[in-house]
């Protein structure tokens, strides 16, 4: 049975097409790829006017859940929820895209969607072990991408905590994927399983506060976990933070080198539109003495990097085409650095840069902080 809210909200669409700002539609240019078209598809499915087939399912999954449609929607339809709810409905009917299915299988095996060995999850941390405090109630949650792909973000975060005297704890190989890729692609059962594994470990460790480097993990743990906990009748009394929020609190106490560089900032969708964190990274960048040059689309109108919502895994070329549009915007600023606050955005934007002659250094904000600390 489809969520009544999905049906009611898809009927509200005014069809004004202001949601043409959608990154998928920008690249693909077909109504089926636009939020308006997707809502009309859902409405037509509900009314029995069209049938589900492989193509329809594929089109409905072409969405990074970036939320730019929700920001622009005149009727204020809660579109991010709507897309996720409808994907969950499709999943419940057995419609799952092949790569998303593979991510699921890999995660059941190794507890991360990359399918990397669980035993190697904490390899980045091996020589940093002495920096943790088992007594601390503050947990550093690195997330899958920083643990397996953009390791320097995790390492620099730990170094930063150490240099600023912040006691923290780390779950090591007992850190599990937060479940974000599965919540975004409608696989709620697996997300719930991952919640339970993480939750149990955190309780064992006596954790009260969680800080993560990843925008996707941040959204999931801060916004989705309390809902899952409520559904399961668990307490969820953790304070959840993104690294940049900690940085924003302590940046005044950090001694930075004098720098003469220009940077632009890419708002990760899960940190910005999903969680409303826009000003903290900008304040940190300015406090470092870096000249910030905004891209044309910034803050709540920022253009997605193209990776989220299961798009990078299932629709590689589409994700790269979107990433390239964002890179173009960044290059137009003539900045030296493109700074972001998300390992997944960093990974994808760096890959999207491959087809350009011009270069820009893509770094996470923590990496920039570490590089500009006064030695």
């Amino acid at each position, binding site marked *: 049975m489809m969520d009544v809210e999905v049906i009611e909200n898809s009927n509200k669409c*005014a*069809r004004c097409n*202001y949601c*043409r700002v959608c990154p998928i539609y920008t690249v693909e240019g077909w*109504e*089926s790829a636009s939020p308006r078209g997707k809502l*009309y598809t859902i409405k037509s499915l509900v009314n029995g006017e069209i049938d589900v087939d492989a*193509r*329809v399912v594929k089109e409905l999954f072409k969405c990074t859940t970036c939320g730019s449609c929700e920001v*622009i929607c005149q009727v204020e339809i809660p579109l991010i929820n709507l897309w996720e709810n409808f994907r969950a409905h499709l999943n419940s009917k057995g419609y799952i895209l092949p790569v998303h299915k593979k991510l699921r299988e890999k995660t059941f095996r190794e507890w991360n969607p990359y399918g990397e060995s669980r035993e190697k999850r904490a390899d980045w941390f091996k020589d940093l072990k002495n920096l943790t405090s088992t007594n601390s109630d503050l947990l550093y949650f690195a997330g899958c991408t920083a643990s397996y792909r953009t390791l320097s973000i995790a390492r620099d975060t730990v170094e930063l905590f150490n240099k600023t005297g912040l006691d923290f704890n780390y779950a090591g190989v007992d850190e599990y994927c937060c479940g974000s890729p599965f919540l975004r692609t409608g696989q709620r059962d697996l997300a719930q399983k991952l919640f339970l594994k993480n939750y149990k470990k955190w309780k064992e460790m006596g954790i009260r506060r969680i800080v993560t480097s990843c925008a996707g993990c941040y959204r999931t743990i801060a916004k989705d976990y309390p809902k899952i906990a409520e559904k399961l009748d668990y307490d969820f009394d953790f304070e959840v933070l993104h690294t940049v929020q900690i940085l924003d609190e302590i940046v005044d106490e950090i001694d930075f080198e004098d720098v003469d560089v220009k940077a632009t900032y890419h708002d990760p969708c899960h940190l910005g539109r999903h969680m409303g964190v826009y000003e903290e990274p900008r304040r940190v960048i300015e406090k470092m003495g870096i000249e910030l040059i905004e891209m044309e689309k910034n803050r709540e109108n920022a253009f997605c990097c193209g990776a989220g919502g299961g798009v990078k895994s299932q629709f590689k070329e589409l994700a790269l085409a979107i990433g390239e549009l964002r890179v173009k915007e960044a290059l137009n600023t003539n900045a030296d650095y493109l700074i972001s606050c998300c390992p997944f955005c960093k990974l994808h934007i760096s890959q999207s840069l491959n087809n350009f002659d011009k270069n820009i250094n893509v770094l996470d904000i923590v990496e920039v902080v570490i590089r500009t600390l006064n030695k």
Partner: protein
Amino acid sequence: MEQLKNQFQLEVSKKFRRFDFHPVQRKLYSYDLSEPPKLLKRFLGIADVVIQPESKEEVYEILKIAKKYRMPVIPRGSATSAYGGVLPYKGGIVVDFTRLNDFEVDEDKKLLISGAGVVWWDVQKELVKRGLSLRVYPTSAPSSTVGGWIGQGGYGVGSLKYGSIAENVEWVEVVDFNGIGVKEPSKFVGLEGTTGLIVSAAIKLKDYDDDRALAFNVNIEDSIKLMSKSKAHTAFFYNDKYVELLKETRSLKIDDGNILLLTFESVSNTVSDGDEEVGELLWQDRFYPFRMRKISNLICVEVVLPIQKLIDFSKKIEKLPFIVMFSKTDALILILLTVQGEVKYSTWLQTMKLIKIAEKYNGKVYSPGLWFSYKSDKLLSNFEVLRSYKREVDEYNLLNPGKIFPFGPIHRLIKLADLVVR
């Protein structure tokens, strides 16, 4: 028949890069903003194919194929109108113009030379960077296309000073069955592509100047006086019922009662009083009339009246929320009707009743499109000239059939309903 269909599909596949025959895509290119009741829906076809031409030459190729297979051709921009102009009433080839999105600016002549698929607000942002600005643009500018508005015709932001879109188009480039050519716009503006497909146009520009918006708590009589005396480029009047809705849906901090919004180019502003804060709020809101749908499904009825008849007409609709957008001589009135549940035939009868009332005050429906094509002879002063031109260039009635020039059962059904409405 099946063989012909296969042959058609094969030919489209060979000639074009961007096309789609999938049934869901075809359905998605077969709607606009209108909500026809079930009774009318059953007479509406869906697209046989959607093609996105990437050049005017490709548009010409589409017409050649259309003629060969006797397929209707339906031009489509962003489909943000509610008159059925982009509906593939009799099926056919829906031509999505959004890929014709190049433009250039002749800064000396202050002309924008724009592809049909360029979105108004996208181009305005670029013009502003060069110190220029559109003189008029539609209230759907964030998504509607240059070709779409020219094809639809009518008024927009800036029309008080600069007139309708027709008065702001220098020339249009049109593709018909005879080829591609630059033409004088009068046989194409507001004609929904029934006399030829617009592929580009030259639009008049002005020097950029900051807008200054001021709001006044005045009734409609005083609004007309104030608006007439002013040098504003845009004037909107919001009646008290509309203001109530605005407050409810937008949480705007504004006083109850009627509001007149005047917007000036800051150099020509001669009015010193008026509320700047409320003015700016309403000005920022000019692109978002559908925000009201948040609380209830709404149908918009648009009628045009001579300004001198507006006061009397407004008394007839004072219980309904409405906005007036002023042009030099006319008032475009957008009346909102609340709909519970789905749109029924009775909702349409209500709409027609309002149009009928407007007609008693020398008013008319805003655009004929598909739904009101039976009124075209009364809405278009040169209808006979246009009809004879249509026959000349479109021998088989393939250019957007049923729009502007009545054809098929729909116009008869609506005309019948029109006769019933009192």
